[in-house]
């Protein structure tokens, strides 16, 4: 039993409340990612679960037991820090054995557990080295190894990949996914990178300004964001938002063309959201809106076209392959009804 549950968890510093009552159930063995912009309280929430920050209100339980007043070492958690937090004056082996030695674990068992973790992470060759003699990726593995040897119920990761370069980050991401599969432990992972959130998570928790905006699987969040914040945050290319006016049996788009739509709540729609990958080029007659191409980014397998509408809106269109488009040429864009998300005045999704 290593489920984690949060009940009305709050955190304030003096009179400033930064986490405003969070309720969340994390099942045993689940990989949950907290994601959100900086300052949204995701790290604070993780540190409260870790026992590094006292909580100002509510209950945190791990394995069915309220741990509000239980000090960190007895919570059965292990934490991987953003800066790795390796002890620079100890070898890799000593770093990994530190916690076990403190717990007066028999020497043979320490040895066996460190070797086992080193084998899983493929760092057996570095055990006698000092941290400063390791590369960033290797240090990251040692930090994870230090967590594994303690055999915790819950792993906590605080932005563990943000100090690695892009290619190493992608590689380590895959390794963390594999590790979760191997260890079958509960993992809570904090990141501001929505790619890490999408690829690693069983469930994503989107936080904004100290409250949970939405909890769901990556695809749920991608397909059915509950509001404009989640819609704009999830997925690699940001969703386009256009101001619309309900009119007759459809919505009036910028440029005054009508999008006919049989949506039950279209009367309340104020904002239309559509992902760049759902937009497509169209003939001038069939187009829903048109504009001039102001920037095009070619990635080879796809291209991103930034189209400026006469209304001043900038719309991103993701096009397959390497389209032959000229800067400043007129682009006609079609809007397929199935890719459309509607939001009301307050930014809530209309279903």
């Amino acid at each position, binding site marked *: 039993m290593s489920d984690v549950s949060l009940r009305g968890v709050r955190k304030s510093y003096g009179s400033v409340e930064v986490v405003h009552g969070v309720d969340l159930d994390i099942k045993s063995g689940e990989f949950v990612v907290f994601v959100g912009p900086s300052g949204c309280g995701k790290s604070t929430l993780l540190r409260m679960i870790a026992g590094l920050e006292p909580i100002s209100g509510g209950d945190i339980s791990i394995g069915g037991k309220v741990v509000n007043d239980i000090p960190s070492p007895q919570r059965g958690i292990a934490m991987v820090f953003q800066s*790795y937090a390796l002890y620079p004056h100890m070898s890799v082996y000593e770093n990994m054995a*530190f916690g076990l030695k403190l717990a007066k674990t028999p020497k043979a068992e320490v040895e066996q557990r460190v070797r086992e973790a080193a084998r899983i992470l493929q760092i057996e060759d570095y055990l006698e080295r000092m941290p400063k003699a390791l590369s960033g990726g290797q240090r990251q593995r040692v930090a994870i190894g230090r967590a594994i040897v303690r055999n915790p119920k819950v792993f906590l990761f605080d932005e563990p990949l943000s*100090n690695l370069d892009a290619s190493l980050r992608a590689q380590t991401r895959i390794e963390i996914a594999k590790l979760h599969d191997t260890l079958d432990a509960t993992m809570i992972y904090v990141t501001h990178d929505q790619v890490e959130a999408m690829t690693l998570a069983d469930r994503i928790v989107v936080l904004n300004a100290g409250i949970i905006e939405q909890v769901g699987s990556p695809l749920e969040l991608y397909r059915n964001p509950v509001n404009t914040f989640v819609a704009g945050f999830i997925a690699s290319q940001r969703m386009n938002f256009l101001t619309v006016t309900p009119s007759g049996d459809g919505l009036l788009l910028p440029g005054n063309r009508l999008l006919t739509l049989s949506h039950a709540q279209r009367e309340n729609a104020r904002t239309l959201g559509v992902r760049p990958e759902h937009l497509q080029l169209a003939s001038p007659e069939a187009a829903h809106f048109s504009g001039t191409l102001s920037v095009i980014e070619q990635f080879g397998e796809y291209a991103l076209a930034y189209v400026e509408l006469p209304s001043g809106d900038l719309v991103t269109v993701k096009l397959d392959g390497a389209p032959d488009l000229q800067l400043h040429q007129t682009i006609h864009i079609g809007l397929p009804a199935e890719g459309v998300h509607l939001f009301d005045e307050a930014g809530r999704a209309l279903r």
Partner: protein
Amino acid sequence: MDSTGPSRTAAIALAFMAVIWISPFSWLILNAFNPLSTGQLEIPRAVGLDNFALAVSGNAGRQFINSMLIAAGTATLSVIVGISAAYPLSRLRIPGRNAFLWTLVLLRMLPSAGVLVPLYFAAQRSGLLNQLGVIIALTVLNLPFTLLLLKNFFDTVPIELEEAAYVEGASLLQIVTKIVLPMSRAGIAVVWFYSFTGAWNEFLLPLIFARVQDAFPMSVGLYAAFGQQGAINYGFLTAFSIIYAAPAVGVYFLLRRNMNTGFAGVGVKG
């Protein structure tokens, strides 16, 4: 004119400077190793360690031990008190802690002769007119800089390391002894060695506090060695001076080695 070639005038001038620099040292060494020393700068007719034997036995030997006790005691006590005070100053958000530290340093800027009288009476009242008194007084005088130095060293130990150790089950004492102190050992070495040399060289306080010959450290002993028994024994005096200077030189090399092997850095990138 060839401006890069050696010039005769420059060579003479440099040689002259070299002689001026070297002559006191050669005088010191030649006399120290000459058992029949007269205090003249001359090539000794005999070479021996008799002077050194004299300088480490009897009264002189006791003074060496006294000096060691005072210097090592002051350095160790400064480090222990300094660590216990500087760590909380570094980690706790005590209001006005920096103003407090700098005020202490300002007070320390007063010449120690200025606080000698109150120090003397305080020591007299508490029965500390002895070596322990000297050690305590010197430690107190050392503390402002010790605190400032150690606090700055502790500030460089990332708090995440302590948090990591805490999550792994380390107590506060274990965090300090196993993480913070080993990582600050360069700073601790600096403080220890500086306090050591400072206390080793200290003349005024031991002179006032230790009023019997048995309690004199070398600094006071050297002063007293002039004109003892009517005549000056230059051989003894020079050997005594060399022994007196040796720890300072030794400390220099120890310090250099410690600074080189000090803080390795946590290194987030790489």
